[in-house]
């Protein structure tokens, strides 16, 4: 019973966390899209490459 209650709490916490992580990303994406296709394209590519580079640095340690 205790494990089940803990799992329910974790379930809710994870769902809320996913919403908190994803919502700002797509809100920002909408703002960028409103600013122009070139803006959203450039920003997403640069952000993706930068993130890839940072992950490479972190995971190679």
């Amino acid at each position, binding site marked *: 019973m205790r494990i089940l209650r803990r799992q329910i709490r974790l379930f809710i916490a*994870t769902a809320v966390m*996913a919403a908190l992580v*994803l919502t700002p990303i*797509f809100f920002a*994406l909408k703002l960028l899209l409103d600013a122009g296709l070139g803006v959203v*394209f450039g920003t*997403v*590519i640069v952000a993706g490459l930068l993130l890839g580079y940072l*992950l490479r640095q972190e995971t190679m340690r």
Partner: protein
Amino acid sequence: MDWELLLVIFIVALALGFDFINGFHDAANSVATIVSTRVLTPTQAVIWAAFFNFVAAFGLGIHVANTIGKGIIETSIVDEKLILAALVGAIVWDIITWRVGLPTSSSHALIGGLIGAALVSAGPDVIIKEGVERTSAFIVISPMVGFIAAVFLALAVMRLYARVAPSTAQGVFRRLQLLSAAAYSLGHGTNDAQKTMGIIAVLLFTTGHLGGEFHVPIWVILSAHAAIAAGTLAGGWRIVRTMGLRITKLEPSDGFAAEASSAAAILFATQVGIPVSTTQTIAGGIIGVGSTKRLSAVRWGVAINIVIAWVLTIPASAAVAALTFAIVDEF
């Protein structure tokens, strides 16, 4: 019954057939992870995906259908021959790439088909530059957003579960995956079925079967969703069984992060009316999740194949459609 009406009925059936194959082929993307983690059996998983493919018909809008119907080429030049050529171009390209194992997008093939047939029919002036530019940009943006969102979500999950026993976490993610797979199936259903709706609606509009104003009739919405759901049910389980065994390296938490972030990316694109490749978006999500472990954990060969597909699909399907239109136009 006149020949023109028969031709329209045939093309509508062909478009629904294209939608059916899309469901058949893409079912694995949404449910492979819940099969590999044994949350559901392949049959249960496919029924789960098909249900949400169909439910997506209600309340998610028809922005993508409008883009396909009147945002890629001028509707004034659309006729039965052009739509037939566009569909043939997309289907032929899909079959060729399926045979050689290249992960291409049916959606982009359809857009390429429309462009190719329109170019031969009336020249470059009938191509709507803004619609093509937005769609082309999102070929790259959508998987990249899937990648970025999945990285952030996977890192957040790692942090939240740092002190949680693996068996407890496993139990939570088994249930969460049901939600993320449902969300992905909703996204797949709505974005992909709307491409078929757009094709059928523009055909009906330009042949005078839709009245004076372009719109998507309810029977077109329901039949497109029914076709994609039926495709998922009919053949998906076989692909799911293979995929489910192939992607065993994904942990339940990884599957959740990849599916949830890809679903969000697809639903976002749907709301702003942009047709995207659902397959390539979830590939971006899976690469994102894999990258948080180790960049070398990602099968970069697959990623390179996706890039080749990005570059080739629209021009190649456009070429097939152009050739088809030239042949059909002789009759």
